[in-house]
């Protein structure tokens, strides 16, 4: 046992001596090639510029695309708003009547028909209103008749019945205050509102 320990210590000492080396290291100074360095720097610069250019172009392209998308969305929104406004245009009625009048009101209905035809997912609500002169209770019935008149006109021209809901407010929600013919004429009306499918609307051709 004692012999084994002695041999192990001796071998360890030899290993340590070999690892620490024997004398001083030799110092070598390499020759400097400045041209190569400049070329290297130039290449790096060129690569950097090329990279930045590509980033810039990519960003410009991205901006252009974004602007185009925004412009398209703006045009779409404008078109939707325009179509919505056209759809929301009220029609008016003669006193105690529910027939759609020729001229301006019929033109308005034609535009609504075209919009509904061009936007198959669109559903609307028509609410009939009256002026204050008739009986309060009869005006509820008259308002419904006015809403029904507009719906029937559209259904007769191919719009599905289930795309249109009709309601009446009678004389309960006047558009204009006052007891004169101007106010009464404004209050005898059908109002049209979108109930579904109105987020993106297509403007019918020719409008």
């Amino acid at each position: 046992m004692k012999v084994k320990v002695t041999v192990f210590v001796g071998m360890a000492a030899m290993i340590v001596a070999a690892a620490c080396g024997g004398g001083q290291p030799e110092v070598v100074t390499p020759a400097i090639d400045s041209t190569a360095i400049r070329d290297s720097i130039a290449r790096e610069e060129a690569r950097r510029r090329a990279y930045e250019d590509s980033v810039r172009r990519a960003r410009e392209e991205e901006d252009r695309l974004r602007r185009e998308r925004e412009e398209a969305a703006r045009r779409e929104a404008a078109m939707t708003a325009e179509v919505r406004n056209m759809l929301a245009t009220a029609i008016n009625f003669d006193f105690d009547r529910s027939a759609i009048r020729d001229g301006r009101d019929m033109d308005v209905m034609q535009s609504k028909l075209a919009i509904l035809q061009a936007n198959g997912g669109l559903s609307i609500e028509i609410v009939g209103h009256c002026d204050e002169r008739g009986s309060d209770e009869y005006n509820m019935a008259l308002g419904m008749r006015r809403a029904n008149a507009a719906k029937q006109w559209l259904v007769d021209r191919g719009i599905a019945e289930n795309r249109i809901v009709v309601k009446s407010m009678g004389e309960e929600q006047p558009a204009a205050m006052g007891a004169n013919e101007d106010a009464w004429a404004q209050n005898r009306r059908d109002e049209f509102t979108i109930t579904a499918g109105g987020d993106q609307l297509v403007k019918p051709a020719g409008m």
Partner: protein
Amino acid sequence: MTVRTALTALFLCLPLHHLAAQDTVPPVEQGVRIGITYTPGLRPGLMVLGGPRIEIMDSIRAILSRDFDFSDRFEVISLPTGDSLVLGVSSAESQGVPRAEDQLFVNYSLHAALGADYAVAVLPTVEPFSTAVVLFDVRGETERGRFEIIGTDGSDDALRLSVHRVADEMVRLASGEPGYAASRVLFVSNGRLYRVDADGAQRTGVSDAGARTFSPTWDPTGARAIYTELYDGWGRIVVHDIVSDQKRTVPPTSELLNYTAAISPDGTLLAFSRSTEDGTDIYRYNLAQDCCLERLTVGRFSDNLSPTFSPDGRQLAFISTRAGGQQVYVMSADGTGQELFAPFDYGVTGNSNAPEWSPDGTQVAFHRDVMGSPQIFVMDVRSRVVRQLTSFGRNEDPTWAPDGRHLAFVSNRTRRRQVWVIDIESGRVRQLTTVGDARLPAWSRRIQVPVQP
């Protein structure tokens, strides 16, 4: 004892123990007149006597005086303020405040000289919170009836109603026909439903402040208001219990536009209008059994609305546009036998709307356009003769008082739309409401139920 407790024990219109006086005067029955005979157009004088200056009694005197005046069956004689024309009592009890139990001395000759045919005294009794109201026949020099009112607060709903009931009973004793003071009128103002006593006092909101109510009516007891709640372009009919303030929607009216509700005289059936894509038609629903919706009219190209039951519940008058304009038609309560009711000249007579059958069934009131303005008309059911009652301003939506002699209606005669009352016999009118833009009045029958706590 609180007022409320006292009111729960209220026994209204109960004749007191001075039966000896009444024994000499048999109960007045309809068609039998004892003492002064009431004749329409010749109004007997009535005087509400002064008495103990107790606040509650002053309130009762004021309410009674108004009720007698508004009945249009008496010439109510007013005395100067601070008058000393009061009841006397016999010498034995002449000290202190005279009470109903005292031996009363009425100076009949003095009251007769002042033009009174009847005198009414308001006196305390020995019971706390109790007031006696005594009616004297001045010409007959006899006491005609006594009533007891329990309560202490003149602004209290229950006390006011009990005073109105006493007034109505005294009108019956004096004229043979009861008054209409113990009734109420519903009306809509700026979308909210209100009720007001027949004398114009006690205006109280019925529907929620934000609700939009329409075409109200009453059930026959005066316990429930039935009206349309407008929402999102539709209208549901709700039954609103005035006493408990609970309400429920009539099931088949929870969708679509339902309005112009009418309740049958027995309270079991609801008739109403419904506007749909198929037009406006009248439906009937069994409220008592909560079932059985029936369509009574099939308009298609015409509107049918505003049903009103006859007092026997067997017929419905209603508005139809089947002949072009709006006119009054009638049918059996099951929808059969539809025919023109109020005659009109085609192309000449103006539109007619808002019919209401009178409580005695003899007349139907409605409004009809005359030169562009609606005016109140009544039609005699038997002869079908139509009579115009108003001519100044716009006058519309008539509704009968329980006495069948007065109508409430909407008029703009003072520029703002308000509810007015007209006595169809004398033509006398008075303003009932003073709120903004009052419309769609509905007059109850005599209130038969306890009032709310």
